């Protein structure tokens, strides 16, 4: 049984919303007075759970009652929607800010990579920036000097190492920053979405490095990412943070499937409350995917036909009738790439909304998606004029089974997420 290296007890973090400067002095005096009389913080009581759909309240709990015990050598994946509190947790762990309640105890040096290349100065050379960045991350001079050749080599910027960083491409800056971070002396590593920057080759390098850190050097890693594939590849255990609370904790497979089911169709009623980007004059209120017989589906099968039913509600009735409606539905894979997109503009029929509520139907024939999990983005707007509502990755669906190719071949889902049938033959060259 390995010992725990991070122990998080009842951690909570409360933030103040809105203008920081408005009424702060009054509030602070108020607080001080309450504290002086031994009363609880008067503003703590109005804090509400971090739910982006709920408005109101001056204070918000970005995190509440988090308890975690992380063992040595554990690679923990932290997943959750944007604003769920993942980054706040990492900030607390890396001491960027202090918690409002609870305590965190740790064993060993922590290196936190909330960003790569923090503190790079454009006027300094690559080499000078390695020293500066290394020192900011807590390395001592002699430690950096001992590793400088390795760092330069790892960054692949050897040729330009004595050139000011402002002449570097953004990719080179990221590589240089990452190279410094990769050579930190530490027992615990905190990585926040750094893989999101940089090209494919760089991302692969980072992933390889993380696997190496865990496998060979037995480091404990906390990894936040929206890239479920990456999480799945690297992590052994996972937690889901939802609205500032720990919603689930378990091994990584269970965590990911739990996270995906959380966004399933039984949560549809949330759609109407979810604020998308767009002016909101017409709101998307639901999505139903049905088969040929009109039966609602919770999963899809390659090669079958479906009808996607997008329900809407017109908030501003003065707009009626609305002509030239554009509706679209995107399917995004776990790497974040949109792999399938259906858009009403590609169809000859022009859509108009004449009633306050209704359903827009899209017939989708011969689904050409490889088995896997996809998240769905919905869009509703008036062609070329305005966006009414756009909900990014709010639902998810699993595609599985079926016989797309008609010969029981499963396809190559790990290489490509779309399917196309192809006929092959060989023709001999008669001239030989």
């Amino acid at each position: 049984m390995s010992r725990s290296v991070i122990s998080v007890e009842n951690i909570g973090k409360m933030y103040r919303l809105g203008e920081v400067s408005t009424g702060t002095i009054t509030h602070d005096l108020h607080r001080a007075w309450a504290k002086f009389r031994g009363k609880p913080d008067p503003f703590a009581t109005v804090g509400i759970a971090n739910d982006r759909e709920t408005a109101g309240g001056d204070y918000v709990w970005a995190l509440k009652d988090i308890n975690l015990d992380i063992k040595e050598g554990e690679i923990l994946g932290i997943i959750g929607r944007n604003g769920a509190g993942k980054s706040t947790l990492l900030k607390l762990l890396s001491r960027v800010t202090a918690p409002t309640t609870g305590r965190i105890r740790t064993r060993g040096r922590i290196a936190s990579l909330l960003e790569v290349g923090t503190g790079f100065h454009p006027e300094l050379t690559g080499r000078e920036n390695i020293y500066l960045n290394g020192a900011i991350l807590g390395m001592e001079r002699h430690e950096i000097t001992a590793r400088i050749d390795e760092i330069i080599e790892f960054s692949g910027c050897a040729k330009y190492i004595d050139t000011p960083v402002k002449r570097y491409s953004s990719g080179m800056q990221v590589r240089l920053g990452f190279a410094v971070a990769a050579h930190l002396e530490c027992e615990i590593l905190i990585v926040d979405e750094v893989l999101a920057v940089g090209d494919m080759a760089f991302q692969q390098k980072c992933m390889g490095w993380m696997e190496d850190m865990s496998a060979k050097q037995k480091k404990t890693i906390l990894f936040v990412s929206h890239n479920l594939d990456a999480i799945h590849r690297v992590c052994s255990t996972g937690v889901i943070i939802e609205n500032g609370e720990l919603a689930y904790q378990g091994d990584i497979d269970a965590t990911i499937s739990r996270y995906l089911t959380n966004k399933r169709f039984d949560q549809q009623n949330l759609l109407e409350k979810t604020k998308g980007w767009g002016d909101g004059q017409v709101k998307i209120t639901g999505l139903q995917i049905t088969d040929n017989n009109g039966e609602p589906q919770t999963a899809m099968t390659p090669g079958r036909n479906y009808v996607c039913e997008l329900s809407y509600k017109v908030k501003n009735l003065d707009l009626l009738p609305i002509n030239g409606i554009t509706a679209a539905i995107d399917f995004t894979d776990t790497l974040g790439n949109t792999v399938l997109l259906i858009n009403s503009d590609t169809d000859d029929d022009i859509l108009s909304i004449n009633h306050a509520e209704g359903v827009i139907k899209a017939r989708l024939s011969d689904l050409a998606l490889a088995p896997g999990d996809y998240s769905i983005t919905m869009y509703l707007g008036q062609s070329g004029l305005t966006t009414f509502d756009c909900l990014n990755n709010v639902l998810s669906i699993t595609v599985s089974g079926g016989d797309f190719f008609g010969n029981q071949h499963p396809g190559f889902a790990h290489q490509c997420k779309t399917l196309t049938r192809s006929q092959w033959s060989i023709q001999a060259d008669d001239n030989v």
Partner: protein
Amino acid sequence: MNNNSHEQWTQEITPHRGWLQVPVKEIWRYRDLLYLFVKRDFVAFYKQTVLGPLWFIIQPILTTLMFTLVFGRIAGLSTDGLPQILFYLAGVTIWGYFAECLTKTSTTFSDNAHLFGKVYFPRMIAPLAIIVSNLMKFGVQFCIFLLVFAYYWLNGMVQPNLAVLWLPYLIVLMAAISLGIGLIFSAMTAKYRDLRFLLTFGVQLFMYATPVIYPLSAIPAKYAVYIQLNPITPIVEMFRYSFLGVGGASAGSMLYASIFAATVLALGMIVFNRLEVTFMDSV
């Protein structure tokens, strides 16, 4: 969890830090960072401006010329019989260090928000680096002063005395007072932004409450008391006395400045240290 493992925790993060828990050891461990910050400031300044470090020199020289013209020639303020240029240059040089340190350290949090928001290091490093970088700048400006001073000395117009040995101590006092006040203000400007304007303005006004453009001896006795309450007064007067032989501060007022410096520095460190852990939420 058994009791043994309990003792092995190397760090504990709690909502608050004790008032007196200044992480001196940690600050010392990060001394390389302080050096690198100073170097960064210097190199960046040098590379980004056309005239480079010449600015360090141009600024006090132009200020001195302006003061000479306005206060010396037009207003005809007393300089205790000293050459006006030298008198104002002395004041501008020493005051400049204080003012620069104070205004820069007071905005530590907003200036370093991008760093503080991403990485932890003892926040105190940033204001300390400002004090040290400004010391380098002061060094350059002091050399200019020495050149001008040497000219007048060789012409027998001024006579330095042994009090110049006080100089390092005067600089330490200046640094301590500006750092102390700066730290206290940095705690406040992080939360209440408008205070930084108040401070910049306040520093300008404060110069007139300090014998920079006039000697203390030219102040009527009933006002001199107030001017002497200003802890910078004995420092500026002492600086001028040691090089130019006019003015001077009593042992009592030097002691007063020293006690003030120690107190304000301790207070600043305590406030800063107590609040640094959650500052980033309000910036």
